[in-house]
C-alpha cells in the first residue's frame, strides 16, 4: 500500500457544532490520546487520538482487521481478558484514567456498556438475563427489579413480544429478539457510554432497522460508539464518523469528523475511495 499525500493528522477536536444534530453536546466524553493496541508482538492499532462527544453517535468504519473491535474492547478494558493484549496511550472518561491498572473495572464496565456482534444472551430465562446484572450491582428490591426490567424491555421494543414468557429461555428467542435483549441487558444498568460492535450484522434487514431506530432514540441520552460495515447505516444514524485503515497491517485512524463531512467531503483520498466503494 503506497499512498501519496501527507500523513493524516492524529488529533482531532472539533469546535462547537453549528450544523450538528441537536441531541449532541460538543463536550468530549471520552478523550483518547495516542492509543495503541498490540497482541503479543503484533501491533494492530497505532497512535490513535480522538475525542468522542457526549450524547452523540460516533460510527467507526474501515476494512476488516483494521482494529475496530480491538479499539472498542480497549475502552471498557475487555482487553484484560485476552492473554497477551497490551494497550498503550491514554483514555480519559469523566476524570477517570481508563487504562489505569487500579481502576475499578466493575464500575467502569457498568458505566461503559458493550453490545457484541453476535447476540449472546445467557442460557437463562429472559427475566434472569436482565436481573443478573442488576443484582450484581446491588439492586435487589423486587419492585425496583420489575420496574427496571420492564422499562428496559419497553425501550428496545421487546416488552409486548415477551411479557407473557419472561420465564422462558432467552435462547428460544429469534436472533433479532436476542440482540435486542442484549441491548436491554446493557441498558438496564443505565450506562453512560454504549459500545456497539456491528450490532446489526447478524440480523435480517427488518430487525436491523428496529435496532437502528433504537440506537437513534438513544442519541442525546447516551454516548454511542458503533462499529459498522454498513456505510449507509453509518450515514443514516451517526453524528460523527471515524475512518480506520490498515497501513503495513497496522490499523490507523485516517479521518475523523462530522459524519456528513466525512461522507460528502472527505479530506483524505483513502476515505474518499473507501466511502465511494472503490476500496476496502
Amino acid at each position, binding site marked *: 500500500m503506497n499512498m501519496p499525500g501527507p500523513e493524516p493528522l492524529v488529533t482531532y477536536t472539533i469546535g462547537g457544532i453549528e450544523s450538528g444534530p441537536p441531541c449532541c453536546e460538543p463536550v468530549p466524553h471520552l478523550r483518547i490520546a495516542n492509543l495503541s493496541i498490540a497482541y503479543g508482538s503484533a501491533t494492530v492499532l497505532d497512535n490513535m487520538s480522538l475525542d468522542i462527544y457526549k450524547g452523540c453517535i460516533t460510527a467507526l468504519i474501515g476494512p476488516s482487521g483494521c482494529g475496530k473491535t480491538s479499539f472498542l474492547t480497549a475502552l471498557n478494558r475487555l482487553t484484560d481478558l485476552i492473554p497477551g493484549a497490551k494497550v498503550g496511550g491514554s483514555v480519559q472518561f469523566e476524570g477517570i484514567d481508563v487504562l489505569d491498572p487500579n481502576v475499578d473495572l466493575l464500575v467502569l464496565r457498568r458505566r461503559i456498556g*458493550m453490545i457484541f456482534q453476535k447476540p449472546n444472551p445467557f442460557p437463562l430465562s429472559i427475566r*434472569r438475563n436482565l436481573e*443478573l446484572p442488576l443484582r450484581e450491582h446491588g439492586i435487589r428490591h423486587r419492585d425496583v427489579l420489575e420496574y427496571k426490567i420492564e422499562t428496559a424491555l419497553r425501550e428496545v421494543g421487546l416488552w409486548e413480544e415477551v411479557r407473557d414468557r419472561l420465564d422462558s429461555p432467552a435462547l428460544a428467542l429469534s436472533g433479532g429478539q436476542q440482540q435486542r435483549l442484549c441491548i436491554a441487558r446493557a441498558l438496564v444498568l443505565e450506562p453512560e457510554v454504549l459500545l456497539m460492535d456491528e450490532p446489526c450484522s447478524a440480523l435480517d434487514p427488518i430487525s436491523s432497522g428496529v435496532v437502528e431506530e433504537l440506537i437513534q432514540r438513544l442519541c442525546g441520552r447516551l454516548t454511542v460508539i458503533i462499529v459498522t460495515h454498513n456505510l449507509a447505516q453509518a450515514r443514516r444514524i451517526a453524528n460523527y464518523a471515524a475512518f480506520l485503515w490498515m497501513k503495513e497491517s497496522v490499523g490507523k485512524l485516517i479521518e475523523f469528523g462530522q459524519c456528513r463531512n466525512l461522507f460528502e467531503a472527505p479530506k483524505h483520498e483513502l476515505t474518499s475511495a473507501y466511502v465511494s466503494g472503490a476500496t476496502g
Partner: protein
Amino acid sequence: MHTLSDRAFTLSIWGAAALGAAAFLWLLGDLAWHGMAHLSWSFLVSEPLNAGRSGGIAPILVSTLLILAVALAAAIPLGLGAAIWLAEYTRRSGALGRSIRLSLDVLAGIPSIVFGLFGNAFFCVFLGLGFSILSGGLTLACMILPIFIRTSEAGLSAVSDDWRHNAAALGMTRASVLWHVLLPAAAPAVICGLMLGIGRATAETAALIFTSGYVDRMPESLSDSGRALAVHIYDLSMNVTGGDSAAYASALVLIVLIVFINTGALALSDRWLTRRITAT
C-alpha cells in the same frame, strides 16, 4: 457403487450398535436368569449367613452406600474446585496447567490395586484411620478425582468465551459468572464425569479390599470396616463354594443400584438446571 458402499457403511454402524446393545442385554439377561431365584425382599434386608451362601446383604448394601457417600462428599467439592481452577484460572497453554493435566491423565490410567495399596499406606496406616469405611471412601475419591476433574474441566473449557466476555462487559465478577452461567452450562459434562466416577467406584474391589476391608457385619460408624458389594461378589464367586447364586443376586442388585444412582443424578441435575434458568 456409491450407494452400495453407503449402504454397507450404514449397515455396519447399525451392526456395531446392535452388537454393543446385545452384549449388555445378554449380560443383564444372564444375571437376571441366575440371580432372580435368589433375590427377594429378605435378601435385601437380612444379614449374610454361612459366609454369604444364605441370608442377605443388608450390611453390605449399607457399607457400599456409605463408602460411596464418603467418596462423593470428598471428590465433588475438591474435583469441582480443581476443574474450575484449571479451566478458569490457569492459562490454557501455560506450563503449570499443562503439567497438572498430564499428571491427572496418568493418574486416571493407574490400576486400582495401586490406589488400594496407596490408600492402605496413607489413610489406614499413616493417618491411622485403619480398615474403615472412611479409608475406603477416601481411597475411592482419589481414584475418581482425576477423571472427574478432567471431564468437568473439559466441560467448562468448552463453554463459549462469548459468555465470559459478555458477563465481564456487564461488570459481573468472575465468581458470579461461574456460578450463574458457566457451571450450569458445563453441568452435563460435570454430571457425566460424576457418573463415570460413581460407576467406577461402585464396581471397585481391588482398591477397597485393602482399605475398607471385608468385614460383613453392619457398620456402626464410618470408622468401622465394611464390605462393599463388589468385594462381596468377588468373595462369593472366588472363595465361597456354593455361593454362586448369591453372587448373581448381589451382582443384579449392584447393577440396579448403579442405574438408580445415575438416573437420580440426572434428575437432580435437571431440576437444578431448570431452577438456575428461572429462579430469582
